[in-house]
């Protein structure tokens, strides 16, 4: 604290000047930089930012994943053929395939063979089940031209006429449910963000009032040396901007580390069946660039919010501290 702004004759180095500028025009801050309350506030801001960043990450993950699902699913539709007495399954599947291939807008159709069907059912039925002996429905996977999709109603009718046991699933119900779920997650995320921001704001209001009464003697001195309210508010704002930046940057940084680590863990586990399920659902647990940009925006927002809140708080309560208690107007 004794270092800057000294009218020493030796010129300060470039770095010293830079550091000095960051600390505010090369002069000791009028609101003293460090104290216990300041550290507590920085910690609270860091925690709040961390929670908010996790929320941003989760929301970005869900929206990305939902988008990917939607794309994959609308590339493909499936036709399910249920077993029935007297139905030649192989024949029926081939018929379905042919009808599908003849429908305009279809790019290809494959029968999911017994091995693949077996894998699909493995989690429920266990390994080495002979599908011939079980009345298991079989699937034909139809890939469609998303630019010029087939008329699903027409296709459904055609199939029904040829193979009554065939059931076309264009996944629309699925997709709309997915979209609803994703929207719900986003809505909840925004709500959590709002809560975090309100909590942060309130914390900063109390911290600012605490700092004002803790530095009351300084405010009084500033008053009688002729400082305007705007000057005093600006000094407190600078003080809290610094605390806010440090706290928010720390919280955001930890959140980003968590994202990266989670991404790596799910990546590494990809070989195991459990991780297979997870990555089938979410891809890998990777936050896209929107998530990272979101976290950076969040850090900036929290710091700016901290500064603004303290400025408004100071402006509002300065009258209480002014030595003369004049009629307000």
């Amino acid at each position, binding site marked *: *604290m*004794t270092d800057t*702004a*000294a*009218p*020493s004759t030796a010129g300060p180095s470039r770095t010293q000047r830079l550091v000095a500028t960051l600390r505010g*025009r*090369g*002069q*000791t801050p*009028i609101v*003293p930089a460090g104290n216990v309350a300041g550290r507590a506030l920085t910690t609270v801001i860091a925690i709040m930012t961390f929670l908010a960043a996790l929320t941003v990450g989760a929301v970005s993950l869900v929206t990305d994943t939902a988008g990917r699902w939607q794309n994959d699913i609308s590339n493909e539709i499936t036709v399910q053929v249920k077993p029935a007495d007297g139905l030649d399954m192989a024949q029926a599947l081939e018929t379905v395939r042919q009808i599908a291939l003849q429908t305009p807008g279809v790019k290809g159709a494959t029968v999911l063979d017994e091995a693949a069907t077996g894998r699909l059912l493995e989690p429920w039925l266990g390994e080495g089940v002979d599908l011939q002996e079980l009345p298991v429905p079989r699937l034909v996977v139809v890939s469609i031209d998303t630019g010029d999709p087939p008329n699903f109603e027409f296709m459904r009718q055609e199939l029904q006429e040829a193979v009554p046991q065939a059931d076309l699933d264009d996944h629309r119900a699925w997709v709309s449910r997915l979209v609803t779920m994703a929207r719900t997650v986003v809505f909840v995320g925004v709500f959590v963000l709002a809560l975090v921001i309100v909590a942060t704001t309130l914390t900063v209001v109390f911290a600012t009032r605490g700092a004002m009464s803790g530095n009351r*003697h*300084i405010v*009084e*001195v*500033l*008053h*009688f*040396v*002729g*400082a*305007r*309210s705007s*000057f005093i508010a600006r000094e407190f704002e600078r003080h809290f901007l610094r605390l806010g930046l440090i706290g928010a940057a720390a919280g955001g940084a930890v959140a980003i580390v968590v994202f990266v680590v989670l991404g790596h863990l799910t990546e590494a586990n990809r070989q195991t069946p459990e991780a297979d399920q997870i990555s089938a659902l979410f891809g890998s647990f990777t936050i896209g660039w929107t998530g990272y940009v979101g976290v950076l925006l969040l850090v900036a927002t929290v710091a700016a919010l901290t500064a603004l809140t303290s400025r408004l708080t100071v402006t509002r309560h300065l*009258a209480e501290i*002014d*030595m*003369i*208690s*004049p*009629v*307000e*107007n």
Partner: protein
Amino acid sequence: MIRFENVGLRYDMGPEVLRDLTFEIRRQSFQFLTGPSGAGKTSLLRMLFLALRPTRGLITVLGRDVATLSRKDLPSIRRRIGVVFQDFRLLDHMTTYENVALPLRVRGRQEHEYRQDVVDLIKWVGLGERLDALPIVLSGGEKQRAAIARALIDQPDILLADEPTGNVDAPLARRLLRLFLELNRSGTAVVIATHDLGLMEQVDARRLVLADGRLEIYD
């Protein structure tokens, strides 16, 4: 420059500390404000520099009726009044240089413009060696002089000093008194609150004497 008319002051529900004060502080004048401890010298000074409103009566500071001032008007008036507090009120986390420069910094001046003036003034009050010292390592007399320098740095129209020699030995008190006289010759009105008779004997100046809440003036 400052006029009091029938001014009375009481703290909360207490007795009237000051009663029926009527006097004027003229431009470029020099006066002592005296009276026993507890007579109300500090209270009177606080009304002079707009830290306290009177309970009754009329105070005019630099042509403005204090009762009609709003908070926005206070800074520009306070900037023309230099105050030396009995307890100095230096900011503990700032060096002598920064404390003395504070009024200029608050006025938005650029440091490179005023640095030399501040250093010169600090040397003038004899603290040239203590530019970078924090208040905690300064002696009472040094703090006193830092506080005086801060009050003078923007060449106020009037200087109000509360017991400015209360913390210093006699030789330093004489030096400070000479400093105030020199300041007064250069055009600043000076009010020194003191109960130090020895100090007042050194100068033939106007005396405002407080006793039992009333003021007697010896020109």
